[in-house]
């Protein structure tokens, strides 16, 4: 399963790579990273058919996660549409609502609970 992680914080990469060490080793999941909404869209333009799941932070400089979500739903809606999960700061109700409105599949809060994340990914990895 190809997962695209979008977050402006660079240290997110080693975190994911280490947390999913086993899964990566077993070729269950492959991670790609983008540090901005723009970067993510550029990546998707090329590799969209392969990417199954997108994990995006909401609070980013430049294009926000919500905006990115909007673009994904508009530009890359050829079925099956990619699953998009939004990550946001604890207690951010407004963003939660907006994300759901724009068509996010799921929602996670920071700090990321990786065990919960792995649970949420399970149904998609069984495809």
């Amino acid at each position: 399963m190809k997962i695209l992680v979008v977050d402006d914080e660079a240290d997110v990469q080693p975190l994911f790579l280490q947390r999913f060490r086993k899964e990566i080793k077993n070729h269950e999941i492959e991670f790609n990273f983008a540090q901005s909404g723009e970067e993510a869209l550029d990546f998707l333009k090329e590799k969209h058919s392969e990417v199954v799941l997108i994990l995006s932070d909401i609070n980013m400089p430049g294009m926000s996660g919500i905006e990115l979500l909007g673009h994904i739903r508009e530009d890359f809606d050829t079925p099956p549409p990619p699953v998009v999960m939004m990550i946001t700061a604890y207690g951010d109700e407004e963003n939660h609502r907006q994300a759901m409105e724009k068509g996010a599949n799921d929602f996670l809060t920071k700090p990321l609970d990786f065990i919960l994340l792995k649970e949420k990914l399970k149904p998609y990895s069984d495809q």
Partner: protein
Amino acid sequence: MLLRRIIKVIKFTTLQAKWSSILNICSIVLWVIFAVASNLLPEVYDTLFAGLCLGGMLYYFKKEADFKMVNSYIVAHYPLVAVSVVTSLAEIVAPDFVETYDDYFEIAILLAFAWIFARWVSTKKQEEEFRAVNEQNLVLDKLVAERTAALTKQKDELQEAVKLLQTTQQQLIQSEKLASLGELTAGIAHEIQNPLNFVNNFSEVSMELIEEMGEELAKGDTEEAMAIANDIKQNLEKIRHHGKRADGIVKGMLQHSRASSDVQELTDINNLADEYLRLAYHGLRAKDKSFNAELITSFNPTLPKVNVVPQDVGRVLLNMFNNAFYAVQQKQKLGIEGFKPTVEVKTSYPAGGKEVVVIVKDNGTGIPEEIKDKILQPFFTTKPTGEGTGLGLSLSYDIIVKAHGGKIDINSKEGEYTEFIISIPAKN
């Protein structure tokens, strides 16, 4: 005739309630005396006697201060007295003369009576007018008293309102301070969350990795174990890095929230400006992560330390920076091609060494000419409702000019740039 005179006197007394009892008695006595006298004396002496009595009474009344009011009335009786005395004397001395001219004498007496009557009427009228005026005065006095009471009540109410307004103003100023602090803490708390998340996550991951490393070592795969050990080392480095990040942010926040004492301390303005610039930037980015601006700093290394209240001057700089960021943000929203929001801080120590100058310049929306002299006024703001209290610049003015004896100058071109020049006296 006598009776008439006495009646007049009595009527006269009704005007003086105080004397009424006494005078009533007197008139009765007089009646008696006259009755006796007229019986005893020959007729001619009657009139004379009466006239003299009347004269005596008048004289007495005139003397009494109490009767001053009816003085004119008393005077009115004089002619009668005069005429009756003359008549009676004439009768005694030259009865024939009197007989001949009896008519004239009669007329004279009648005229004297008429005169008294006329005066009586006019006096009465005067008195009525007097009373009417008195009553009016009483009514007016009452009105004035009522008005005064109403005005005093209004004055008290207004004083209360003024007190309430002053209290409210103080509260608003306080809440502006708290709001600016609150905005900052919200932004900063947000900013701290990221580093803290990393600290937590990398710690957890490292614990997992150590377990794995144990397994690999048990298997004998030292290469893999070394690789994992390397990862752990990197993680710890990241934990340190993010921990320091959070530490720096908290320190900055504590500095800002330190209860504002009025204690002046020697402060490095360059450091202060740099610190608060970063605080302002953090705060704004936390609220609006899409916010980006270029920060240019040019700090004069020869700047001496100045005696200021650091939190207060810091607050002023913070306000200036926030305004600058807001301005460039607004201009960016206009979507002008190639616009790069820039905020510049420059410190200088002009020749003469009298003052230290901090310039905050932005290439934002600028200040329109019409509102240039209003912006330092309390509660004046161009921001939409709820976004700004309008107290930032007026508080800054209070701090720099009133508390520190400095200056704030403003240069601006609408649509192009704004420049705030803060001068603080440097005591050598």
